[in-house]
């Protein structure tokens, strides 16, 4: 599921997600060359809370992306509608506007 997601999602969203995880884990965990093994200890309850936070964040990312797509759509006076629909036809329209359909 993650692989499929990486291959079809917009770079903006992917970056936002990796940034989120990276800042969550911190520098030691993100640099394998430091040669340190980081292990996180938590109770089931706290782990559940973290999962919920992250799911909610993912949900917000999708909504943020939607708003961005709408904004592009609404203020694209310099980009003709044809241009946008063309791009949209090229990429497979999965529906529920994704911002990369409308990227410059």
């Amino acid at each position: 599921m993650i692989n499929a997601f990486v291959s079809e999602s917009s770079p903006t969203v992917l970056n936002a997600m990796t940034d989120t995880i990276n800042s969550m884990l911190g520098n030691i965990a993100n640099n394998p060359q430091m040669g340190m093994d980081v292990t996180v200890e938590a109770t089931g309850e706290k782990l559940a809370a973290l999962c919920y936070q992250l799911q909610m964040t993912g949900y917000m990312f999708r909504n943020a992306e939607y708003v961005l797509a709408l904004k592009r759509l609404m203020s694209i006076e310099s980009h003709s509608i044809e241009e946008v629909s063309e791009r949209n036809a090229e990429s497979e329209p999965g529906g529920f506007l994704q911002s990369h359909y409308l990227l410059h």
Partner: protein
Amino acid sequence: MLRASLEAFFNHTTYFTNISPQYKKAFNRIDTDSSGFIEASEIEGLLQEVYGGDSKLPGFEIDTFLKFFDENGDKKISWGEFEMGLGVVKSKGVGGGNEHVLMLEGGENNASPTTTAKLSGIIKVEMDNDNVVDVDANEYVAALKAEMAALKSALAKESDELAMSGEKIGLDGDNDEGLQQAGLGGYLMALPEDNVKALTKGISNDVIESMRMLINYVLDGGPANAGKLEKEEKVALPAGALRQLGLWQLVLGYRLRELEAKGEYKERAN
């Protein structure tokens, strides 16, 4: 931490910063019959353009658009709802253009909100429409205080609701402090209010419920069937595993919103 990344995301994309008359223009452009509201047929007109003339616009796109903005459930979108949905408005309760907007900076300057300093004289207040109005200082401060009280009670209500949703999902054990530190409540409360409003507003109970189910699934051992993890039981996760788990949760949330928007949610769940 998550808050920082969300902010970074917004900053990168000028999500909330791009306030301009373009919005009003866009609204008027979409509102083709100049009724002051965007109706379903007008949404269809807008979105059909994206899909091109040939392919059919799926019905859910209109529904989702409408649901995303329509706050009072009248099936049409007012200018206020439009602004709010796009994150233009910085505080709730800002209605038509005649009301003046009072921006209260949160946090820093409210050390002694109950001071009763004596005031006199006239204050010049610059209204939204550039008119300057003279107001009696005492009346103005009284109005500000009333507004502050209203905001506070709204905030309190919000916190209650958040606490309730935390309970619903079964995360709010007997440890209130824990919820504040790590739970949804603390996290969302830390975000600027309008960001959260615009982005989680209208989340359906179905989605909350499936989040709960998914989390139980993780705790039950997930796909690896690793054995059930109890609430109080400690587990040690290598950073790599936590990274995978975290990414998976983000993608799940993202997908849930997508399914919700496409109206496919119910089919998948069964």
